[in-house]
Each structure stands twice: as C-alpha cells, then as structure tokens.
C-alpha cells in the first residue's frame, strides 16, 4: 500500500515535471503534432494499462502525450544539429560543381546536375591555372608524413607501454608518472627551440622534422598502457619465454597482435592528427616541394582565388578523402574518443 502511494506521488511529480517541460516546448508544437498522431496508437494502449493500475487517468494521459512531445522535441533538436554538422560540407562539395556566377548570385545546396562533369572539370582547370602549387605534391607529402609518423608513433608507443607494463625495472613508476605529466604540456610552446634544433641538425626543408618526433608520443603511450593494464596477461609472455622466444620476438610476434585494438585506434588518431596538423608544418616546411595539403589549402585564402567554384573544388579535394575514410572508420574513431575520456 505504502509502495502504491509512493508510486502515485512519483507519478504525480513526474506529471508536473512534464508539464513544465511542455511549456518550454510549446514553440515546437507544430512539429510535435505530427509525431503525436503517429504515436497516438501506442499511447492509447498504454493508457489502458495505466488506467487499470493507477487511478489518475487524466494526469497519466497528459503525461504520455507530454513524453511523446518531449521525444519529438529531442528528435527535432538532434536532427537539426546533425544536419548543421554536415551542411557546410554539403554546400562545399555541391558548389564545387557550379560556376562562379551561380554561386555568387544564388544559394545552391544541390549539385549542378545539368553539367556536372563539365563544370567540375572547368573549375579544376581554373584552380590549377591559378594555383601556385600542386595538389598531387601536397597529397604525397601529407601521406608520407602521416603514414611514417603514425607508424613510428604507434610502434614505439606500444614498445614503451609494453616495457613499462611487463618489466619490473627501477624507475618505471616515475617514468610513467612523467609521461602522464608531460601529456598536458602544449606542444606549441617549444616551437622556437625545435626550429633551431632542426636547423642545427640540418633537417629544415625536409619532411623529417614532422616524422621523427612521433617516436615520443606520451598520450599514445598512456592509452596503450591503459589497454595493456586491462587486457594483457603476463602468462603469455612467460609461456613464450619458456618456449625460448627472445624478448623482441615475444613483443613483435606475440604481444603486438594482441595489442592491435588499441594500436589501431591510436593509429587512426595519430594519422588524423598528423594529416590535419598545420601550425608546425607551416613553420618547419620551408620549401615548396615539402608543403603538405593543409598548407596548400591555406593558399586558397587569398583574394587571388576569386573563382568560387574553383575554391570550393580545392577545399573539397582536401575534405572528400577524409570524409570517405571517416565513413569506413567512424565506429572505431568514436569508440576511441569515448575511451579517451573514460580512461582519464
């Protein structure tokens, strides 16, 4: 009986709360009404069950309706933000197929179906004619830097994390504490010293300044270490040792495959970070043969590029590959972001 009373109170409270929400959503009523109709059947069946169990039919009815309205509101907002997230890219890519006149006199968010290929090719020629750079070179440089730095970063991070996890050497705890500590140091503060160092090593004008530092990636080490803590069993290593494997063999052939989930996640982020990096390359890549894609895209800023179709095409060239890759990998990327937050 007491339970019932409590439940009633609870229901009443909820109804009140929902009413309050209802007030706030009155603006979106129009959108809500449609959804209401769609869910009205369900609500009716639910009402019956409520009526039998609780003697407050009016309140419960409005509560159900409010809930439907509430979820409709949620849908509207979430859909709005989802569309907001992609509409600029849609605009960018569709406008890459229009001519400047159309772009500058009317808002178009659909592609130029009547002359899709022709206009795009025209825009491309306009882009190439004006460009002081070659996108192919930019792609190559970006690719070389991203792939090599990612490979170095994940391999050596895995090696380090494995070393800290598996071997009981003196100072491993302070070392790990230090790695966690330096994770937060903004990498840009040492740029002046780094530039000077790269000059004295005679590496300016090459791609190395952006590749070599990837060997030491504290954040990657941290995340892989966290993964190892939860999933690597030392028995496997013992077993390998008993079978006579040396330590590097154990790491490379046995443990590295086991770490693949963590490594692949980190590899994706490392690759994206490197691909999108702008500040350091803008300073360290001093010759035009070594410029990366973002540096070339930055050149589109200038008023030299007044052909909007060509500009949109240039921007799209840098965006589309990422979107394609993202479509395939978004599951891993999002779970990686989740892991990043929680494991801290």
């Amino acid at each position, binding site marked *: 009986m007491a339970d019932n009373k409590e439940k009633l*109170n609870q229901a009443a409270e909820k109804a009140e*709360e929902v009413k309050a929400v209802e007030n706030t959503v009155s603006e979106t009523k129009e959108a809500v009404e449609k959804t209401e109709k769609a869910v009205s059947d369900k609500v009716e069946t639910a009402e019956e069950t409520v009526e039998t169990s609780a003697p407050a039919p009016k309140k419960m009815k409005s509560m159900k309706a409010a*809930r439907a309205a509430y979820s409709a509101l949620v849908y509207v907002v979430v*859909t709005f*933000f*989802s569309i907001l*997230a*992609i509409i*600029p890219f849609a*605009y960018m890519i569709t406008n890459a197929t229009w001519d*400047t006149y159309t772009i*500058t006199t*009317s808002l178009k968010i659909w592609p130029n179906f009547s002359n899709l290929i022709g206009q795009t090719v025209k825009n491309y020629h306009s882009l190439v004619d004006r460009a002081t750079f070659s996108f192919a070179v930019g792609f190559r440089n970006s690719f070389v830097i991203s792939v090599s730095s990612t490979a170095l970063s994940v391999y*050596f991070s895995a*090696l380090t994390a494995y*070393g*800290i996890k*598996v*071997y*009981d050497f003196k100072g*491993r705890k302070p*070392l790990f504490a230090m790695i966690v500590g*330096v994770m*937060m140091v*903004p990498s*840009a*503060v*040492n*740029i*002046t*010293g780094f*530039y*000077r*160092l790269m000059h004295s090593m005679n590496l300016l004008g090459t791609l190395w300044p952006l590749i*070599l*530092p990837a*060997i*030491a990636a504290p954040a990657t080490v941290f995340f892989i270490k*966290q993964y190892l803590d*939860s999933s690597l069993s030392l028995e496997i290593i013992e077993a390998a040792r008993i079978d006579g494997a040396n*330590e590097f063999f154990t790491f490379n052939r046995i443990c590295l495959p086991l770490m693949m989930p963590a490594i692949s996640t980190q590899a994706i982020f490392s690759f*994206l970070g490197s691909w*999108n990096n*702008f*500040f350091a390359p*803008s300073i360290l890549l001093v010759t035009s043969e070594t410029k990366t894609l*973002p540096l070339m*895209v*930055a050149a589109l800023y200038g*008023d030299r590029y007044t052909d909007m179709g060509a500009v949109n095409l240039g*921007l799209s060239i840098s965006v589309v590959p*990422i979107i394609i890759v*993202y479509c395939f990998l978004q599951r891993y990327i*999002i779970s990686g*972001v*989740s892991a*990043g*937050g*929680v494991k*801290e």
Partner: protein
Amino acid sequence: MARGTAKSTARRRRGVSYSKWGYIFVTPFIIAYLIFSFYPLLTTFIYSASNMKRTTSKFWGFDNKDVFYDRYLNLNDLYSDDFDNRTGVDSKSYKRLREYFDKYQNNADSLDPLNEDGVKAIVEYASFNDGEEKYSVETANAVKNAYDNKDFSLLMGEPYDELVTWFSGYKNETMMNMKALANIRTRLDAIVDSSASDEESATESEEAMTEASFLESEAYTEFVASLDSTEFNPAQLALLDYLSGYLSSNLEGDYTVQSYFAAVSDGKISITDPSFYYTCYTLDKTKIDFAEEGAEEKINSNIPVSFLSDLESFLIENSWKDTINSLNSYSDLDAYSKGEKDLHESEEQLYADLKTLQAAGIINIVPLVRSGDEIVESDDYLSNKLLAYRRYIDTKYETSDVAIAAASQISAIKNFGELTSEGGSPERFADLGINIYAMISYDGTVDIEKYRQVKSTLGLADSLSFASYERLDKERKQANIEKAQQQLEENNAQLADVKAAYEAAKATGDKKTTQEAYEALRRVENGITEAKENISNPTGILSKVDSSRFYIFSGMENYRQIFNSKSRLDTVVGSFVNTAILWVIGFIPQIGLALLLSAWFTDKKIKLKGLNFMKAMMYLPNVITSVTIAVFFRKIFMYSSGGTSSASQLFLRNVLGIAKGYNFFESAWATRFIICFINFWMWYGNTMITLIAGITSISESLYESAQIDGANSYQTYTKITLPLLRPILLYTLVTSMIGGLQMFDIPQYINQNPPRINFNGTMIRSTRTVLMYINSMAFGTSSHKYVGIACATSVLLFITTTILSIIVFYIMRDKDAAAAKKLAKKGAKKNG
C-alpha cells in the same frame, strides 16, 4: 602452493634477468622525447633569457650572414636560380648579352661598324660551316673591303641586304637581348643615381630646384599638355579613372587627373602634397590591382611621366623627410617615431613601405663595391654590378662566340646604315625601358649552398664577406657616434639659453611666446635624448641585421621588454585575452549542448533511433582539417560591395532582406563570433561522445536504486550523473583549455587582417591569439625577428597553461572525486 612458487620464481627471474629489457624497450621513447621535446623546451626557456632581439641571420641558420646583407643590398638577384625565368631571356641570349656588356664596359666606342674585331668576326663566321643559315663569303669580303677602305658605302647593295636578311632572323632574339640589356642598364643607372642622391651628394647639387622652377620646367608643362591631347588606350583610361576616383575621395572636390594637374599648375595644390607624388608615381610605374575584391582586372599600362625623376630628386633635395612622413599616412612609421605606436605587430607593413620608398628613390640603400680585395661603401657601383652580371652569364651559358660577335657587328652595321649621320649609338638601346623590378625581384628564398657557390664563382666570396660588412658597419657606427656627439654638444650648449628664454617667456605671461619657447626647449631636449640614444645604440649600415649580440645571456631582459613597454605588454596580454575570449565563448555553448545531447542520447525513456548515425554526423567536423574549415568560412562570410556575393551575403540579402549585406570581417566581435562558432561546431560532437561514454560507464545499479528511492530524472541527473561525471568534465575542460590556448589555424585563416580594437589604450588585432603572436614574432616574414620576445611569450604561455591546469584541478576537486574517479575507471574497464 606450487603455482605460487612458480610465480615468485618467475618474478624473481624477471626481476633479475629481464629488467634490462625494460630499459631497452623504453630507451627509444626517452631518447626521442629528450631530443625532440625536452631539449627544445629547455632551449626555448634559455632563448627567452637571451638577448636576441636584433639577431637573426645566424639564429635562423644563415651562417653566411652576408646572404642577409646582400639581400639588404638587393644583390641577391644576381645569384637566384631562376634568373633566366624572371628576366625572360633564354639561355642562348645570355651569351649575347655578355658581349654587349663587354662592349659597354670596356670598349664602348668599338661599336663602330668598321671595327676590326667585328669585321674579323663576320669574316670568320662566313667561313664556318655549321649548318646555320649564314651570309656568303662574298659579303664577308665586302665587309672587309669596306673596313679596309674605311668606306661604309661600299657595302650598299647585295652584301648589305644579305647581311640585313641574316640579321632579321637573328633580330628577335637580339631585340630581346637589347631589351634585357636596356633594363639592366636602367637599373644600374638607377643604382648609381640613387647612391649619388645620398645625403652628402644631395647638398653638393648646385642648381637646386624650386617648386616654381619645377612647375615651369619643360618636362612638366609638356606632360600636362599631353594629358589633354594624347589618345589613351583602354587600360590607360582605366588607370586615369582609377586615379580620378582616388583624388576625388582623398581631396576636397571632384578631380579628374587633368583637372588635378591644372590645379597643381595654378598653385592650388602643392607638389609636396602626397597625392601629387602618388599620382605621378602611379601613372608612371603602375601595376596596380583594383582595390575592389573580386575584380580581376589589372592595370598594367602605364602613362610615362617624364618629370618623375625630377620630382623625386626635388623631393629628396627639399623635403624628402616630409615626403616620407606623408607616405607614411598608410603606415605607422610616423606614430612610431613619436613613440606613440608599437610597430612590432605591423613590421611587415613597415618594411613593405620602406621598400616602396626605396623603389621610389626616396630613401636608399647604401651601395657597396669591391676595391681590390676589400669591400667599401661607394657610389662607383656600376662596374662591379656589370662584372657580377657578366661572370654570372659566363658561368652559366655558352654558345658560339663568333656568331654573337657577328650578329652584334651586323646590328651595329644596320644601325649605322639607318642612322648614318649619328652612328650606332648605345643610347638607342637604352630607351626600350621595361620595369626591371618587375622582372628581377627578390622572392624571399635563397638556397644557401647555391648562393655561396655562385658567389665564389663570381669571385665575390671574400670581398662581400661578413668581415667586410662588419668592418663597414663599425665604421658607419663610429661616424654616427661622432655625429651624435657633435649634436649632443651643440644641444647642450643651447640648453641653458633656451631654458632661460623659456623662463623669461613664462615670466612675461604671454601665451604665444611661452608656447614657442617651450617648443624650442622641447626640441633641444629631444635632440639631447636622441643624441644620447644614438651614442648608446648607434645605427650602422646593417643595424637591422646586427648579429653581434645573440646567445648572450641577458637575464630577464626580454621579460623586461615585455613588461616595461606598455604597448608591447598590452599586445602580449591582449593576445592572451583574445585567446581566452575566443575559447570561453566557444566552450560554454559547446559544453552546454554536449551535456544536453549526452543526457538525451543516454536517456532510456527516449530511446533515440539512429543514434550511432547521428553521433557520427555530429563528430564529422572534428576530423576535417581546420584550415580547410577556416578558409571555407572565410569565403562563406566574405563581403564585397560589388556584384559578387558570398553565401552569407546572399542569405542576408535574399532571405532576410538586408539589401546592403553585412561585412562580418570589419567588425571585431562578428569575426570573433564566427571563430567561436566554428570552434563550438567542431568540438561539441567530441565533447558529447566523451560525456556519453562517461555516463554509460556509471554503474547501472546506482540508477536502479535511485529509481527505487523515487528519484525523478532531473534528480537522478543532478545527484548521480553530474557528480560522477566530474572527472570526465574535468578532463574535457583541461583538454579543451589546452587546445584553446593553442588556437591558431582558424583565427589565422578566417581573417588575416582583423579589425583592431582598443585594448587598455593600445590598438591590438581583435583575433590575434598567443600562438599567432609567437608565430609572427619568431617566424614572421619580416627580416627583423624578435626571437627573444617570442620565446618569452612561449614561456608565459607555458606558465599560464600550468597554472590554469592546477586551478582547474583544484576547483573541480572534491572529497568524492577520488571515489568517483575510481568508479569511472571501473566502469571504463568494464566497457573497455
């Protein structure tokens, strides 16, 4: 038990025999970290305490500092790799060019068509049989005959025609040669002229021009008359239109170029008015873009202004200082000289202006030449320049000597034939002027190795060496110190008198005389300060790249420079404040929306469909290159008063009905809000996913028990979710803050010339972040780099980050935090 023993044995074994592997495994990381992160950080700290404010050729790697100095002297053109591309002369022609140099430099009179060498060349060439089209042996003999008899008329008829025919095939290239030559000559002349118009030599000039004599001069009156009578081509008409617009908007009243010059002739407008010089200069040397954005048309066609050099020399002689000041109307030099303005943020503009002035001949650069093995400051620059060019050409290009000699000889004969009374005059070639600066210009990049190589081939490596520059610099400094001392003495001598005069004027109480006396006193006092400053910090010829003072530990000098100069401190603090503003305004809606969305996404009562898909869409902006996004938004919000419109302007005009549109980038806050919006838009998805992960990692049983206790969803959210989410929120806050402090790409590429706002009395760029400031100080395009200041700012950034992190941790800390963190970790393990 047995298992336990095995384990402990294993551990001991690991402890004993495997721990070294631990060191081996972590060594690469440690070494790489020390080299690539720690050492640079350490050196950044050290540099921040070193005096490098004037440095930098060495600091930035130009061990051969003369590259820097040569650049200062515009000598680099000689050595640059794409010299031929930029001069537009093909490699074959170079050799021919060289021949002309020979003639002009050493034997200018040998252009006589009856020159022995030339005849020899023609005869020799006729005897060659190298497949090229050539003239007959008879013709060659006729030339020889003509030479022997010293009678040119003997050539008339067939031999001459044959020669001319052959030559016409040669002509195009030769014309190119002549043009290039003429350009180089023009340039050399300009250099010699500009050195002649140095301060000292200017005073030597006997016949000083006055404004009246200038207006009466033939060149000027002719020009003004020609403006009315000449037929201009469309491009020139466009130029005139442009200038009319400029004059009308900058002066009172409507002007066309013609009426403007008439007004000048009538004495209504002084020729020292900046608009006059600008107008003449633009007419003559024009290569301007229309100011309007989006317009592609350029004006390339100039209208020669015959008296421009007179005007320039007049301005230099009489009021060049005023002219500089007036030209400064678009720069800040003037305010800088009065100490009202910090130029560190507009150095690029300053140097661009200085370059303009130099190109206009209003200021000039001290020319250096070699004399024997030494380099001296001199106005006899021509020969060295010629030598350098010729050697460059020599080393790079080769072709048939004889063919060139013959061609040049024939061209001389041809000229002789056409201008028999005057002979082939070198001046004939010189008026084919093309702006040499447009063809040969320093583009900012130098390959050091090649540079040195070419320099040593030219035999200039020793003479144009750092030591010579340094010595010269020292001498100039010494001279300046002496000058300053003299000035100091003079002013000191005057001081007592002026002071007395001022006191006397004050006593009389007459305002006007007091004012005048006061100004006189101020002048003397300023003179003394200036002289003292010049003595303590004398200007050398190369003071801009004074390299004598780097790596000198200077303690807190850089910090003192930041904190003692109000304008600089405001600039630095302003950049921090900008960064904070941009971050906070973006972060608040970001975390708010992320909290809301994450609550909805995890709400079991709503059960959103297509959740993963929506998450993926919302996260998408975060993986796209931020520069791309910045440039895209730049183009979206761009404003043009003309016909072209960006998407936002179309929206304003067509949807909202604001006919004028709105120039977002002219308003500081609009620009800032765009940046904040982009940051918000790029990052809320990321924050949301992190928060969702945090919420789902909270143990389900907590919610269940809350429900049993009768908590509603709001209570559940505030009492369970938020407290347990605290570590995640902290993580989000700290990472976002550190990311925010490093904001660079978006503000840099949304508006490179943002409106300035008043920050504490100093005008600062409204969207310049800390990193942009560091970047422009240490890596900006100007040759004057403030590495020390940049490093000190980096250190301040480092300290700020650390302090903020500590504060954030401290604020977010509570007694439950530890427990919550444990819980969150547990949850993560469960999910992970």
